């Protein structure tokens, strides 16, 4: 969709930019047309995924030799003659850049963004190396109260990209403009520090900032973006499947950004952008048996011997792993008659069963029931979110929910505890359990309003949401666990021609196809493919290790788990893995190797195959 503010641009127009004939489509702006023709009109406040505001004035172009207009907000029209590179326009651009330079702390050599800064590039492009106007800046203390995002407003040019990102992309509205005139500044909520604010630390503003006003201390001074290699891979921290652009330099990860052409418009969350980088624990590279370093062969021998001699094996694998690895795990451990547990498998299996049943019963294509793209959320008239825990478990989806609620969509939230989307919800309903099942009692709660729903049932709520308006989308959070609720919601969606976005606790939705069991209560060996051995994966692994007499652990980092393990075999870290992961929409997404593995292990899969072979 074009962002031209003038509505009547003609279809298929031809215009001339600096003497070059350029074709533009209906409603395209001059800037969009120029970009497609590889003509570089200078910009600072413009950003592809954001609305255009014409604030920075860099893209002023001369139209038909008679007036100056901002290319980012003016529709291309047939026969327009545009000049970009005139002396007069560059004089104005240079003077404005001089003003900006003299009004803030733009001493590039002390700035983290030096070399990657769009403002600095613009200074260079304009040939500006000094300023003739009085130098004076307010000397604002940087705000380092957020662990992952530092805000240095002395380097802020008030382009408003961060404000628009926080509003239009993240839907959170944490960042705003405050004051006016020269005092204009970015204000966090009601002027609190970033650390105390409603900020969700997604870092989208950092990615959007053209200068060094917003940066992450995790990436600061690790190297210039332009000297980095970039690998695009898929995040496996939840089932959304965001595309990560991972920047590396000399075998080290410098930063992670969201791929702006990816499914989430360049958005990431705190987990994908920062927490993957923030793991400061020691990397495990050597196999160990009983605390002593051994060769890999010895470790595998010991592991297989222990497995073979066990009176019962409980095996666990993190669902952060690629589908191929999980399959190899399943096959290898089957050779030792192990019971398998993979987080999220239960919900995913249940969901797939429910969908198959519905397919047969109601004659619907399950694919039609599932939301295709996160953008569909914004197009819904009503969004019903069961379990607002998605704010923590699937933060990027939460952004789309907020965006929708900030727009025309009516948001109904249902939660048994704290409603984390209450600020955005039109109707916030507290249920005794979010997964309350449908009862036969259908009360006419609509007249009683949402208060009457406090003790209502799922059906009541759905009833209300459907009455509110036409197209509805149901979002099921990870806390929805029972079959009945799932049947009800999917069934309602099927019969009302609506869609469901199901966000289970699992990351890799392929776990639905990996056979799992209930773990044995008296197994004496635990086999733990803990993968990133973080958070819930780590907690569950430790629990299982403690229950067993002997624990065999695949780990990437030294942790409480490796301390109690009998056999430790290094595993690949997230950026070393290869394979595919299935996202919540059922799509296969590629996991690419970002850096070569540190240790001896080149492939988790091969190692599991070795183990399987030994058993055979």
């Amino acid at each position, binding site marked *: 969709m074009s962002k031209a503010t003038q509505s009547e641009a003609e279809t298929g127009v031809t215009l001339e930019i600096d003497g070059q004939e350029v074709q533009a489509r209906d409603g395209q702006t001059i800037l969009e047309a120029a970009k497609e023709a590889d003509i570089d009109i200078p910009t600072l406040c413009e950003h592809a995924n954001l609305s255009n505001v014409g604030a920075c004035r860099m893209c002023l172009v001369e139209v038909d030799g008679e007036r100056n207009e901002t290319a980012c907000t003016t529709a291309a029209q047939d026969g327009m003659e545009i000049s970009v590179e005139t002396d007069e326009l560059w004089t104005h651009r240079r*003077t404005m850049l001089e003003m900006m330079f*003299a009004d803030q702390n733009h001493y590039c050599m002390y700035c983290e963004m030096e070399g990657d800064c769009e403002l600095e590039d613009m200074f260079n492009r304009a040939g500006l190396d000094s300023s003739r106007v009085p130098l004076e800046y307010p000397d604002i203390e940087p705000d380092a109260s957020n662990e992952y995002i530092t805000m240095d407003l002395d380097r802020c040019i008030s382009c408003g990209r961060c404000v628009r990102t926080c509003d239009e992309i993240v839907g959170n509205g944490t960042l705003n403009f405050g004051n*006016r005139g*020269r005092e*204009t500044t970015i204000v966090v909520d009601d002027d609190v520090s970033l650390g105390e604010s409603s900020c969700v630390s997604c870092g989208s503003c950092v990615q959007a900032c053209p200068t060094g006003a917003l940066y992450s201390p995790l990436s600061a001074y690790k190297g210039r973006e332009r000297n980095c290699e970039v690998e695009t891979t898929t995040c496996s921290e939840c089932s959304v499947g965001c595309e990560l652009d991972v920047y590396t330099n000399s075998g080290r990860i410098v930063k992670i950004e969201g791929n702006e052409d990816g499914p989430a418009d360049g958005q990431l969350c705190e987990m994908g952008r920062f927490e993957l980088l923030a793991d400061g624990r020691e990397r495990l590279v050597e196999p160990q048996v009983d605390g002593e370093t051994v060769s890999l062969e010895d470790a595998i021998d010991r592991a297989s011997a222990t497995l073979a001699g066990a009176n019962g094996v409980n095996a666990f694998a993190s669902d952060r792993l690629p589908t191929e690895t999980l399959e190899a795990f399943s096959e290898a451990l089957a050779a030792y008659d192990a019971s398998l547990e993979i987080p999220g498998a239960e919900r995913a299996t249940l969901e797939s069963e429910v969908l198959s049943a519905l397919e047969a019963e109601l004659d619907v294509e399950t694919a039609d029931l599932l939301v295709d793209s996160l953008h569909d959320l914004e197009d819904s008239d009503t969004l019903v979110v069961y379990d607002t825990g998605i704010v923590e478990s699937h933060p990027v989806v939460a952004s789309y929910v907020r965006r929708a609620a900030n727009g025309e969509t009516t948001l109904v939230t249902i939660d048994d505890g704290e409603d984390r989307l209450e600020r955005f919800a039109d109707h916030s309903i507290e249920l005794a359990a979010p997964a309350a099942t449908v009862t036969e009692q259908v009360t006419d709660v609509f007249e009683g309003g949402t208060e009457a729903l406090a003790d209502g049932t799922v059906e009541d709520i759905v009833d209300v949401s459907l009455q509110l308006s036409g197209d509805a989308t149901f979002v099921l959070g990870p806390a929805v666990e029972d079959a009945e609720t799932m049947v009800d919601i999917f069934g309602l969606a099927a019969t009302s021609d609506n869609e469901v976005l199901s966000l289970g606790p699992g990351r890799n939705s392929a776990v639905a196809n990996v056979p799992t069991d209930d773990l044995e209560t008296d197994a004496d060996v635990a086999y733990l493919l803990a993968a990133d051995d973080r958070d819930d994966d780590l907690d569950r692994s430790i629990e299982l290790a403690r229950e067993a007499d002997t624990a065999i652990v695949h780990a990437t980092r030294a942790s409480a788990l490796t301390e109690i393990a009998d056999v430790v075999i290094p595993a690949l870290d997230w950026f070393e893995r290869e394979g595919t992961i299935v996202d919540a929409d059922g799509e296969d997404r590629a996991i690419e190797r970002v850096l070569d593995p540190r240790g001896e292990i080149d492939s988790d899969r091969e190692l599991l195959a070795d183990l399987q072979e030994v058993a055979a």
Partner: protein
Amino acid sequence: MAEVLQRPTEVDTVDGQIRIVICQGTGCMSSGSDEVYEAFREQIGALDGTENVALSWSEGDIDHEELGIEPKKSGCHGFCELGPLVRIDPMNVLYTQVGVDDVEDIVEKTIRNGEVIEELCFEDETGARQSRTDNIPFYSEQKRLALGNCGRIDPESVEEYKTTGGYEAMQTVLSEMDPEDVYGEVQDAGLRGRGGGGFPAGNKWMFAHQEDASEKYVIANCDEGDPGAFMDRCLVEGDPHRVIEGMVIAGYATGANEGIIYLRAEYPLAVDRIQQAIEDAYEAGYLGTNIMGTGFDFDFEVEKGAGAFVCGEETALMSSIEGGAGRPSPRPPYPAQSGLEDKPTTINNVETLANVPLIINNGAEWFKQYGSEDSPGTKTFAVSGDCSATGLMEIPMGLTLQEIIDVAGGIEGDKEFKAVQIGGPSGGCLAEKHLDMPVTFDSLQEVGAMLGSGGLVVMDDETCMVDVARFFLDFTQDESCGKCPPCRIGTHKMLRILERITDGEGEPGDIDRLEELGETIAESSLCGLGQTAPNPVLSTLEHFRDEYEAHIYDDECPAGECEIGGGDHAGTYKIAAQDCVGCQQCVDVCPVDAIAGDPGEAHSIDPETCIGCGQCVEACPTDAIDMRT
């Protein structure tokens, strides 16, 4: 022998009431008119029910309640120079500079006995006292059309408004005219926007009319932000029903059923008056559904602004009404296409709207007899500065600058005219050579100024033009919304340069810098505020460049207004750059190396280092070096 007033006839008075009208305009308020009002209430209250009032001009005693003697607050009467003003109707007496102490006298003599108190009357050039406004040049030279009712009728009475022909135009429009005829009439009259831009109002209405939309808006722009301008406030305070009538007509012509007046919250009286008037108009059936049985619906509400200058800009104004920050956005789309809540929106200045009922009642030809060909009608001006009769005046367009100044009583005292700043902070300075220029929308634009809302500051020869530019720029940089860099930063940088010039710290090259910054700000800013912000600087540079040079090179303020002195550096030396030949002799003799400069270029002395020994003065072959005092 005191002039004895005649009993008013029925024709003179609306309802037989005696009215004491105390001006509560900004000017009069600042000289204590609110206290005068309270004093009148007290005095009249003292009469309350205790005795009948003997009026020498009446036929016997009349109960004061029957007469309805009641002090009334009014909007600005215009003649601010001599405030507080008290007008007593229907006798048509204007008292000037009324103090609290005069109130008892006025009640005793004028109200009770029909005597005029000469000392309180305007004193004309001959020394004669004039009690009637017809005999006061400030009023007699004006042509009060838009302001016709202000200070005369009770702004809180629909009935009084109707006696002046109020709501007749609306009735005509709604029952006899098509929208096309209405905007056609306004187009024929050549009515141009009084808020500053001068865009033809009829065309604006036509564009909005042509938009196909189920919902449209009209907005009355009363976000009067220029320092010293208060014509819109005066209209809303003094004749709110006229504004309502103009709005209903605009709504009908454009196809809008909803109107909003955007009013500064700092105008509490105006807010009260318009709110009261809207209530009364609803009551009387002039607003709401099926107005006067014509089937036309129109709702009208008040939106209070927080007093930001930039909110007078149409896109910022609408953003403010929508609850957003008062920040402009680029056009197109124009408000007529997509304005408030993305609906076609017509925004007219209050004064423009006030002219509309007159045009409908009297016809386009009647309107065009006033003013000039390209700018028909009258314009209100808020004249301030060094004139002897400053205040608010309404005069036909096309009078020369000199004529306008004459209406305002000419330059005060025995000083000489130097310049006027017209159009507020967005306007420009005009010099002596422009005195014979007719003042119209177009003539002003030709000389780099603009009519703006009609602010006019007259300056005599003791005014420093650099300081004038600094004053206006200080205002605009403070009022910049901060969205675009040229306005947000550029105006501030210009201000800093002007400040150092008026402080005597100006540097060679500052004039070029001001011009470069000014041109970029004018050419690159997003909205009208920024685009016009450099005007005061650029126009004073054009007409009074020598004053800038005197400040920078001679450390001298020709008008003597700026306190240029050595300040902390008194006793040190400075080099007049235009006299310096760059011979380096001073550099050679300076014992502390305070003097810098390449051969052939103007040198300069660092006052921080200079010890004031004076050896350079001796060495200089061109007498370019002087002591800072």
